[in-house]
């Protein structure tokens, strides 16, 4: 059972009532199917009304839902025979970034993604999806490998940012992120990046320079977390909700701003309500996008990638 978010309480209350009636009905042998049907109809309406009118902060809560499917989940659902490949060959293996090879629609692909955990222990092991330089250098290694074997690269973005620590800085976090973006900008195979949860700062963009940027319906993407924005600009991190509204971070906004190319629908209430269905929707969108990209000639692919970023915030 998925954890309930505050704004989902009305749905939860109706569901509780329905369950009580069902239990009562079966225990006492009284037919309450009419009452139950009415409540179920009502619950359906409330669900639609709540999930259809989410504000930015509510998207943030869904994007960060502890049970939201992560990179591993999507890898397991949509790629066959995935084999994880480890290490940057220089220093170590970053557990916050996973990468490897697998089959997608009968074609070998390279998959790279930031990985958040689903509980405290997993998150500690994965550094909450915050990569060290080794993560970006592993990504670069796997992308160059993909280029050598002419297979597309699929990147899953899900991170609050790059890891802010001593070792990360010492080993050149800034250089690692810049290098990864640089390699992506000229890579001679299609790159699809998909924001599946939260994508913040250069830490996200470090594996985000692709031919297409897809976002799941409840994913969020911006330069800094709403908490960071509120704390730095307003000296008040409790105003994160206001920040989330002010700088436009939800998928619909990112599409409107010309950064995202496509929004991938999610099951009602978010991907965590039905991970398998969410994965199917994601897989379908990925198929369509890859089919488009694989038709392009190499020079068109790289020139379109250039134009894509060149035109963002274009001035007339």
């Amino acid at each position, binding site marked *: 059972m998925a954890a309930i978010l505050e704004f989902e309480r009305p749905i939860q209350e109706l569901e509780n009532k329905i369950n009580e009636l069902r239990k009562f009905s079966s225990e006492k042998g009284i037919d309450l199917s009419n009452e139950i049907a009415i409540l179920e109809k009502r619950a359906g309406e409330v669900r639609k009304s709540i999930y259809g009118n989410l504000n930015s902060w509510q998207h943030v809560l869904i994007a960060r839902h502890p049970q939201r499917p992560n990179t591993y989940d999507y890898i397991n659902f949509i790629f066959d025979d995935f084999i994880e490949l480890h290490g940057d060959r220089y220093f170590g293996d970053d557990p916050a970034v996973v990468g490897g090879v697998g089959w997608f629609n009968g074609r070998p692909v390279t998959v790279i993604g930031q990985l958040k955990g689903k509980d405290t222990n997993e998150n500690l092991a994965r550094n909450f999806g915050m990569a060290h330089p080794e993560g970006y250098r592993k990504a670069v290694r796997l992308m160059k490998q993909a280029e050598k074997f002419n297979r597309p690269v699929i990147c899953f973005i899900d991170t609050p940012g790059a890891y802010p620590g001593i070792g990360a800085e010492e080993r050149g976090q800034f250089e690692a992120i*810049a290098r990864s973006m640089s390699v992506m900008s000229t890579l001679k195979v299609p790159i699809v990046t998909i924001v599946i949860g939260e994508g913040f700062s*250069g830490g996200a963009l470090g594996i985000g*320079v692709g031919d297409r940027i897809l976002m799941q319906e409840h994913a969020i993407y911006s330069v*800094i977390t709403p908490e960071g924005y509120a704390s730095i600009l307003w000296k008040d991190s409790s105003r994160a909700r206001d920040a989330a509204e002010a700088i436009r971070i939800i998928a619909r906004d990112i599409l409107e701003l010309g950064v995202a190319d496509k929004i991938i629908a999610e099951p009602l209430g978010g991907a965590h309500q039905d991970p398998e269905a969410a994965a199917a929707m994601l897989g379908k969108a990925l198929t369509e996008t890859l089919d488009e990209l694989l038709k392009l000639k190499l020079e068109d692919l790289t020139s379109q990638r250039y134009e894509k970023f060149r035109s963002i915030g274009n001035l007339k």
Partner: protein
Amino acid sequence: MVLDAFRKQKNVAAPLELENRDIPDGIWSKCGHCGEILLNKDLIRNYKVCQCGFHFRLTAPERIQMTLDSGSFREIDAGLLPVNPFALSDYAGKLVEARNKSGLNEAVIYGEGTIDKIPVVVVVMDTNFMMASMGTVAGEKITRAMELATAECKPLIIFAASGGARMQEGILSLMQLAKTVEALARLNEAGQLYITVITDPTTGGVSASFAALGDIILAEPDSMIGFTGPRVIEQTIRQKLPEGFQRAEFFKQHGFIDKIVPRPQMKETLAKLLALHLQGEK
């Protein structure tokens, strides 16, 4: 060309007398390192470097004046104004403030000029304009400079300084990182020289994009550089950072900077590097 080293000024007013007073603009400056009070005209003559070695931050016009051949600089797109894509009123106010404080329309200026008669495209970031944060227009100007250098087969020199991406422009500011990196890749493919000069401070998205990608990366002494600023790191790890952490010398030691160049030697060093990369005979 031999550049003047700093000559110690004998008749500087006693620092103690002035310490607790406001220092009038335009006459005196106080060294951020040793506390010495310095006459501005002497300071300018000495590249705004204190005798203790402390490098004062420069304005973009000062940087141009100290680096390019006199009168050679022609600024391009000086009139481009920042945009406020989400119509934030506090940002609008900050932009006005920044314009007044810096005398610039944006945190970035770029143009063409010569260094020891060698034509270059140069970009200078000015921390007086919102900590030289990179918004859409700053990113656009940097990208145009890269495209100009590529089209005109000229070396590109960027004096980097920045607090990072300009948060008030959200995702659009983040995407300027990708945009500049893409444009640099084209300069690179064209075989053009790109020199980065890291100045204090170069952090956040700017450090993690074009500033990190120079063929040659120079830095001014003691410049702060890094992806995450020291305060955020201290808050995260809950311990004090060691002395000198994230300074240019630290990153040189860790292999991320080619050479630390004191400001009085900057022009000369750039000229030598440019000459070494001239196509054809000298």
